[in-house]
């Protein structure tokens, strides 16, 4: 799924999340019920920082810029990883494109 840096993305309502230790567990729901056929997913510290910024109020390039600033690394250095994660989350239905 092609990701556009100027697009706004938002975490789906069809998931529940819980932070355990340093991970965020994401459970997909199907009409409010845990979907047995879908994969559960977990995010590490960097993934959580990105996930929390994907609230639909900023474009993806802003999310990348803010994450780069958080971790004190360059935009170009983190861009590929963020795009890859967003592609994966979109494919799993955990993000929606606005």
């Amino acid at each position: 799924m092609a990701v556009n840096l100027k697009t706004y993305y938002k975490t789906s309502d069809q998931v529940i999340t819980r932070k355990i230790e340093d991970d965020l567990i994401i459970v997909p729901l199907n009409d409010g019920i845990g979907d047995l056929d879908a994969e559960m997913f977990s995010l590490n510290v960097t993934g959580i920082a990105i996930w929390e910024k994907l609230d639909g109020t900023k474009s993806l390039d802003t999310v990348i810029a803010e994450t780069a600033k958080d971790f004190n690394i360059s935009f170009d250095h983190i861009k590929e990883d963020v795009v890859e994660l967003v592609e994966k989350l979109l494919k799993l239905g955990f993000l929606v494109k606005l």
Partner: protein
Amino acid sequence: MKTNIKYYKAVGITIKVISDFPFNENTFHPKFKLFEVKGPGRENITIYQHFHLPDLSQYLDSSKKEIYKNAQWHIIQSENYWIYKYTPVYPMDIGHPATAIFNKDHSIIHTYSPGIDEKKYKNGCFEALTLFNSDQILFSKLLCNRKGLILHSNGFDIYGNGILITGESGAGKSTLSQMLKNKGFEILCDDRMFIKKNKEFYIYGSWCHGTVPDVSPAIAPLKAILFLEKSKNNSIQKIENRSQILQDLITSLVRPFLSGQEWISTLKTLEEIINSTQCYKTKFDLSGEICELIDELFHKDKNMRSNGC
């Protein structure tokens, strides 16, 4: 006098079974003898077994929605009921075509199996009280509301310590279990272990086993989880990385049909288990030497506890 009421107990919950047909010795699989009790307990649920078609109209209101559908299962939820329809599909599938109506908290269940007559019922040797292939679907729901869950694992009582053995498919759960059984340790259940908090976490044997009907009504306080790895040597190494433990346990979690809120409860329980249980990476070969290491580890623990350490 023919009786058509029986009581069984697992995970501290007593299940009253009321059947439209009388029971005999062969109605349920012999494993159920281990779990039979005389009467109600502190926590009780009731399963009514019927052998005619259900009138679903009284359970389905305008809020009804299809939750899940595949070749075996069709699950519908309405405001006050859950409806599970089970159809054996593959030659190895056990159980009978059945529809079960569960009330909201799964404490009252009506099962309908129109394909079973009285003669067939008497010699049914049924594996599950719901008459499905397993009662896992019932227990997973009951446990999530009682600080419990089900893990794909084998459970043992080793010197009074509840030990879970888990790992990916092919990691050697069955092999190590056989080794431990040969040493005389009691297996509580094969492949499906019930865990529930009762001040501390306990592991409970049940009749919901995997392919091997190793069951026991025993319980033991959960002390350790062994994550298996087949190897050319034998070692037990404590896992300190809680994140790694989480990933491994998530993989072993039996995933039931739960609402978002129930999933949050289940994940909270999982977190508590991680925080209160020692976990070990366990490498073993076929020499049996690993049993000595396990024996030493948990026997020592027993001595420490009896010395008040």
